[in-house]
Each structure stands twice: as C-alpha cells, then as structure tokens.
C-alpha cells in the first residue's frame, strides 16, 4: 500500500500548503474539498488535473518523482489556492 497524503481545501486554500513526499515512489494524494464550491486541482509541474466537486474527495496519484519542488494550485480560485509539493 502506497503512502497517502491528504490536502484539505478550506476557504479556497490548501491545508497544508506545502506537503513533503518521498522521491522515487508512487504517492497517493487525497484532495479533500471541504468548501461547498467545486475546485480543480491543477499542476503543470506534476502534469495533473482533477476536478473535485464541493464537499467531496478526489484521488490524484503522482510519481515516482525526482527530488524537487512541484507547484500546484486550484484553477477555480487561483488567487488563494496555491501550494507546493516537495519530493525528497
């Protein structure tokens, strides 16, 4: 079973806004959207995009990743929903 990391979306912000995951492993990210509005988890760095409806969860698999910093954001609330994933 792969490691699982949860990113909570609340008030159009990611919590935590920085998450550290092991490099070189497939990692499961759970996007837990606790806002009533839909959000699109998007990352050009990770090449991922996923719609997460309000008050629901979405799963995004990433990796295996080379060590580094990967930016992600919520496409529908880009001004506040920002975060980084650190692989090391």
């Amino acid at each position: 079973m792969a490691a699982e990391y949860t990113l909570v979306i609340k008030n159009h912000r990611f919590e935590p806004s920085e998450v550290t995951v092991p490099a070189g492993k497939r990692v499961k990210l759970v996007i837990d959207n606790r806002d009533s509005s839909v959000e699109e988890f998007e990352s050009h760095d990770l090449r991922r995009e996923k719609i997460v409806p309000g008050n629901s969860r979405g799963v995004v698999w990433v990796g295996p990743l080379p060590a580094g910093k990967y930016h992600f954001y919520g496409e529908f609330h880009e001004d506040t929903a920002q975060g980084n994933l650190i692989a090391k």
Partner: protein
Amino acid sequence: MLGSAVIVFREVLEAALIISIVMGATRGVAARGRWVLGGIAAGVGGAILVAAFAGAISDAVQGRGQELLNACVLLAAVLMLAWHNIWVSSHGRQLAGEMRKVGHDVSMGVKPLSALALALVTFFAVLREGSETALFLYSLSASGAGGTSLLFGGVLGLVGGVVLGVIVYRGLLAIPLRHFFSVTGWLVLLLAAGLAANAAGFLNQAGLLPALAPQMWNTSAILSQGSWAGTLLHILVGYNDRPMGIQVLFYGVTLVVIYAAMRLVGRQHEQSRTAASA
C-alpha cells in the same frame, strides 16, 4: 466578476475553437449546421449529466473514473477527426474544384455516418469542457453572497468564448478556396494529435500507461502553457511545455497514422478517377 469570466472563458475556449475548425473543415457538407447544432445541444445535455454525477464518476473505478472518462472522450474525438480527414482526402479536392467552378459554395450530400462523425466531435468537445463549466457555474449560483455577479461573469465568459469561435470561423473562410481544404485538413490533423497526447496524459494519471520519460523537454521559460499564447497553441496544435514521453509518442503516432491513411485513400481515389476517365 471578471475572475469568473476569465475562468469560464478558458474552459469554453477549447470547445469553441474545436467547433469553429469543424465548421470550417466541413464546408460544403450538406446540412452540417444542423448536425453541429445537434452535437452542441447533446453536448450541453451530456455535460449537465456529467456535472450532476461528478462525485460518482470521480469515485468510480477506484477513483480513476474522471481520468478514464476524459481519456475515452478524447480518444473518441480523435477517431472521429481521423475519419473525417480520411473522407475529405477522397472527396475534398473534387468539392473545392466544383466550388471554384461555380464561384460559390456548393453542397455535397454525405453519408449520414460522416455527418454523424462531425456531430460527435462537437458533442465530445462540449461534453468535456461543458461539464467543468457547468460544475463551476453551479457552485457559483449555490454560493449565495455575491453569487449573482460571479454568475454574470461566468455567462460573460461563455459569450466571449462563442464570439471568439465565430471570429476564428470567419477567419478560416477568408482562406482562398485553392488552399482551403489543405489548411483545414492540417488543422484537423494537428488537433487530433494534440487531443491524443492529452488522452495519454489522463491514462498516465489513471496509472494505466507509463510516462516512459517524465519530461521530454521543458520550454516553459520560453512559452508557458499557462499563458494565453501557450493555451491557444495547446488547444490548436497540442503544444505542451513539459510533455511526458508517452504523450510525445501518442502525438507522433496519431499524426503519422492519420496522415498515411489520408495519402493512401487520396491516391486510391485519384487512381479510380483516372481509370474511369480512360
């Protein structure tokens, strides 16, 4: 308000551009307007359904439902675009020739299946982009405070997307007839290759395809995919500033296979015409 207008505009843009290319590429096909409108209407209906069941779709197939649905819709559109281009390579020259002779557009009857193919491309484009727009607009209208102004912004973005599509279509019509079908043929070919690369991205996200190489190149410093120019090129020719190996492979294979099929069918058609006139 402006924020929501921009978000919706970006979502609608892809569908609007695809529809304008389809309208251009099917110039001269009888009753194409009706087929395309039917595709749009069915797409909007389907998009609302997909948006309504977004949660269930997302949870399906161990949380990979959304990726699989996106990939299937994209690949189906690629097949339909390929079919259209191969059909045009056998009839397009004849059609353009007749239009030139009479000096205005002529209509050519098509088999219902070919017309259905282009209606389906429209349907798939609206379905995919529309479901995200519908979800977004719905959550705006449900959020209450300030929702009306945001909703108005959303509608503004929608209208903006449609207007841009119409402008692109008018622009395509300005291309001289001599070159018209070869230009639209290339547009459709590159569009199909780009959609195939997107599908590969979703299949990788679903864990069904390996990346092959995590990053083939990085041109994000020169032209970021997030910029407007990058977004436009991404939609039109499948530009990707940091593609995975599997995406480049899908792009190349789609391009080569459709092009080869077009040449093959075009040559056979040419031969049968020469044989008939001899």
